[in-house]
Structures are given as structure tokens and as C-alpha cells.
């Protein structure tokens, strides 16, 4: 790799221990991927939840914080493994909370914006088209690359904070124009796609694409950002889709042919039956078994989605024998409260939780065996670890299961 004088000096320790460590990690990884240089980034989004970071993650972030590390670009953080305000209500063991708080402290010292949200592109960290950024969180990576046209790889834990501290990332993968070409085509010939269909379509595209870049034809031009958020989350978790092109929608596909004149390697058509088959695959639950908890908000619920829940909850309340948990960012919660959406829903028995989400919580402590969600990502990520059976239904189905008429 060709390094600048400043980068070389960093490697010698001239900018402190954290910078030395960070540049060395970037260079080592860059060399492994044939990068010729480090390129500047304008934003970072890092992981910070104890459930996945473990003690090793605490060690790494504390080492950087003690070594004087400071974010050089605006940097937000993904949800925590606990809700710092409501962990007692959610029966999270105190030892576990202490570990998450150590991460919180280290992240604070490093100068990270404590957003604790998987949708940084809606607030506090909105990149522009063509900017190089270094984001972790696969669903946010899919959104930033595809819907916005910013550029990032799926930045792993470790590399994410090193990029934030140095303001740099090795140039490889999706930072390179030619690697952003589409390679497989999905033809979606369906009308009236529902919210759930976008999650499911994402899962189909993810599973069939693997790590190839999909191009999707047939998503209607008036699709909402919320639906693209859900589509990308499904695609990123069922496969490893970091970038997709939706014809007529995503910016790179509007500027030029996403296949760059080549033929697609493979063409898939997606039918209504494909959607139903994928729904059945995502649902692992026996239809007769009793749901113990219903959860919405993966990715975190937006204000628009919260309004929709509010409307469907009119004259209904949560059943006594079931828990109904909704995850959203602190801002969305505060906004929802200001709009008068939150208090009536809490009175109706819904538990809101901010700064965290179901998929990265210590699910085992709750002892659930049967959970219902409207999110393909949530369903796909949770079961392998926690042996849960998952019922996958649309928001209406979730609300009808969790509630009864007043």
C-alpha cells in the first residue's frame, strides 16, 4: 500500500497509541484486499452492542479510548443490547447491563454520537450521493449504498471504529466504481405489494443473490423509504447484499445501466407464489403453538410505521397472556409522544423500548419459545442462536394476535 507521510507517522506512533493501532488495522486489512491506498471518509457507523461484541469488543474499544482515540468524522452507533432506561422492566440481568455500560462509556470517550439506532440515514448521519463512508450494520449499509448512492462495504466490527478515528478506509470492494455493477436481475411482476411483501421480497433477493449485486425491476416508483428500509434489511440478512439497484428508483440505476452493457449472469422472476413460499420458510412456528411475545421494529420503527400501528390499535388492548414489544429510536419515541401516539399505546399495554432491539437483546433470559414478528430480518437472525420458533406475519396479523377489542 502507498501511505501518506501522515499515515506513516501514525504507524510510528506520532499521533498516539489509538491512531497507531487504527492505521495498522486499516493497512493490514487493506493489504489483504489489494487496496493501494487509504481513502478519506465523511461518516462512520459502528457496532456497540455487548450481545455480539462480548468482552473482546469491550477490550478493543477501551484500548482505543484509553489510547486517546477520537472520531474524526461524524460517527453514530447501532442499537445497544439493552435499553438503558428500561432494563429493569425488561428483566435484563444487572451484570449484563454493566457490560453494556462499559461499552457505552468507551464509545462516549471516543466521541461517538450515542444514537443507538440501526437507521442512521434517517437522523444524525445522512450521507450524500457518491460519498465514501464506513458503516457497519448490514441493513444500513444496504440503504446507504443503494437508496442514497453513498459508498461503503459491510464494515466489520473493529474496522468500523478504526475508520471513524482515522477518517479513512482502505479502498476496495464497493468503494471502487467497477465493483458496483449489477450481476443478477430480478423481475418482479406483481402489483399491490404490501409492507410484508417488501420484507419477503428482500429475503428472496438476498437468498438468491448471495454476495452478488442484484438489480430489481418492477418496484413501483412511489415506494416509500420505509419499505426500501425493510427490503434492504431482508436482502442483507438472507444473503449478504450490501448494494442493490432498483430500476427507476435508486440513483445509480437512474444515471446509467446498472449492468454496464453486460448481460445479467442470471435472471429470476418473482411471483406471488415465490413470496408465499418464502413466508412459509421464514415462519418456523407450528401454527397451533401459542405466541408468547409479538414484536415490531426491525429495523427500528419509523414515525410513519408508528402512526400506522396507532391507527390499527384503535379500540384494542394487549391481551393479558401475551407481551407486545415495539422497538424504535429515542427520537421516534419522543416524536411519537409529542404527537400523542405513544401514551395511548402504552395505556393499551404495549411496551416500547428505545436504544435497543429484539434481535440483539439477551433473548435467552426471557425464556420464550414462540415469538411473532413482521420482520424477515428479525425472523432470520434470531432463531439460529436462541432456538425460538418464529411466526412471520404482517403488522395486522401481529396486532390481531397480540390484542383484543376493548
Amino acid at each position, binding site marked *: 500500500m502507498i501511505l501518506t507521510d501522515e499515515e506513516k507517522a501514525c504507524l510510528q506512533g506520532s499521533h498516539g497509541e489509538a491512531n497507531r493501532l487504527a492505521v495498522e488495522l486499516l493497512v493490514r486489512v487493506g493489504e489483504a484486499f489489494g487496496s493501494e491506498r487509504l481513502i478519506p471518509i465523511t461518516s462512520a457507523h459502528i457496532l456497540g452492542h455487548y450481545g455480539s461484541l462480548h468482552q473482546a469488543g469491550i477490550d478493543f474499544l477501551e484500548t482505543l479510548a484509553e489510547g486517546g482515540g477520537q472520531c474524526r468524522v461524524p460517527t453514530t452507533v447501532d442499537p445497544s443490547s439493552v435499553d438503558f432506561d428500561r432494563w429493569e422492566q425488561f428483566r435484563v440481568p444487572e451484570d449484563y447491563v454493566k457490560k453494556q455500560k462499559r461499552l457505552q462509556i468507551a464509545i462516549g470517550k471516543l466521541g461517538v454520537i450515542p444514537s443507538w439506532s440501526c437507521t442512521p440515514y434517517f437522523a444524525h448521519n445522512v450521507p450524500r450521493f457518491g460519498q465514501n463512508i464506513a458503516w457497519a450494520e448490514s441493513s444500513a449499509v444496504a440503504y446507504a449504498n443503494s437508496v442514497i448512492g453513498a459508498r461503503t462495504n459491510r464494515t466489520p466490527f473493529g474496522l468500523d471504529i478504526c475508520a471513524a478515528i482515522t477518517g479513512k478506509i482502505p479502498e476496495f470492494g464497493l468503494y471502487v466504481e467497477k465493483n458496483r455493477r449489477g450481476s443478477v436481475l430480478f423481475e418482479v411482476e406483481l402489483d399491490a405489494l404490501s409492507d410484508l411483501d417488501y420484507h419477503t421480497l428482500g429475503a428472496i433477493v438476498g437468498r438468491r443473490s448471495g454476495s452478488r449485486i442484484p438489480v430489481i425491476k418492477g418496484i413501483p416508483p412511489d415506494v416509500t423509504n420505509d419499505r426500501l428500509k425493510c427490503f434492504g434489511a431482508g436482502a442483507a440478512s438472507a444473503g449478504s447484499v450490501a448494494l442493490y439497484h432498483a430500476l427507476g428508483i435508486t440513483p445509480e440505476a437512474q444515471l446509467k445501466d446498472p449492468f454496464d452493457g453486460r448481460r445479467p449472469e442470471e435472471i429470476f422472476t418473482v411471483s406471488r407464489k415465490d413470496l408465499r413460499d418464502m413466508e412459509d420458510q421464514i415462519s418456523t412456528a407450528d401454527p397451533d403453538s401459542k405466541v408468547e411475545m409479538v414484536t415490531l421494529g426491525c429495523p427500528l420503527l419509523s414515525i410513519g410505521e408508528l402512526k400506522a400501528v396507532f391507527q390499527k390499535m384503535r379500540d384494542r388492548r394487549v391481551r393479558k397472556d401475551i407481551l407486545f414489544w415495539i422497538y424504535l429510536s429515542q427520537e421516534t419515541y419522543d416524536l411519537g409522544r409529542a404527537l400523542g401516539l405513544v401514551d395511548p399505546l402504552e395505556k393499551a399495554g404495549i411496551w416500547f423500548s428505545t436504544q435497543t432491539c429484539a434481535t440483539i437483546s439477551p433473548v435467552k433470559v426471557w425464556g420464550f419459545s414462540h415469538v411473532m414478528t413482521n420482520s424477515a430480518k428479525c425472523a432470520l437472525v434470531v432463531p439460529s*442462536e436462541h432456538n425460538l420458533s418464529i411466526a412471520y406475519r404482517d403488522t395486522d396479523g401481529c396486532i390481531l394476535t397480540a390484542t383484543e377489542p376493548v
Partner: protein
Amino acid sequence: MGSAREVVRGRGVTPGQGQGKALVSTQPFMFAHGVEPQSGDVIDMRSDMLGENIKGKVLIFPFGKGSTTGSAWFLETIRQGNGPSAVINVETEPIIASAIVMARFLYGIAIPLVDRLEKDITDFVTEDATVQVNGDTGEVTIVS
């Protein structure tokens, strides 16, 4: 047997020497929710290595997949002393490489990572073969 040691060349991504029994998967492998750090057991229900243990093994798989938290899961597995003695990939990726680099920084544990071998390793390495990996030179030696 001993004289017929086969040496295959690849690319050394991270330095160090490692030796152990081969544990081979022909599928993309994930550490996030895929390996239990406190035991080294493979817990990914979709993996062909489900139920195996990676501790001290030469872990062979085509490439990594899954969540970007995988590097933390892998790093924690190494921290708890349950990491592999070496890793061989067809083509490695940042999750695997970052974890190994961080492990050397934090815990002084060097795990050689080699990829891009000149031959398909699954053709000549059988499960339980003893394999030696040199991350400095990129050489992989089948000991027995």
C-alpha cells in the same frame, strides 16, 4: 507417508505458524451466531460443521458470510482460548482478517490466515489430516 509431505502455495494474509487437524467446510462460514465463543463449538444450524469444535483446528472454508459482528464473535472465541490454530480460505474477507489482526494486538495471539491456494484444498485435504500453515510464506503443508 512422512516423506510424501505435500506443500501447496497460497497467499499469506496474516503472519504466524499454526498446525492442527483439518476441519473442512465447503460452505461459506459465519462466526456471528455461528460459533459459541465459550466453547468453540459450531452452533450455526445451517452449517455442515454443526456440532464440531474449532479449537486448535486448521479451519478451512471458502469464505466468510453473515453479520459484520462476526469479527467480534471470532475475536471473543480467540480471547477465550478457543480459536483455531490457522485459517485457510478460498478468498478471505474483512470479518475474518480484522478479527485475526485485532487478536494479535490485544492478546498477542497470532493466527496465520492463508487464502488463494494454487489448488482446491478440498481435493487433497481430508477431515482429520494434520495440516501446517505458514502465514509468513503462504505455504500450507499436509503433514499426515
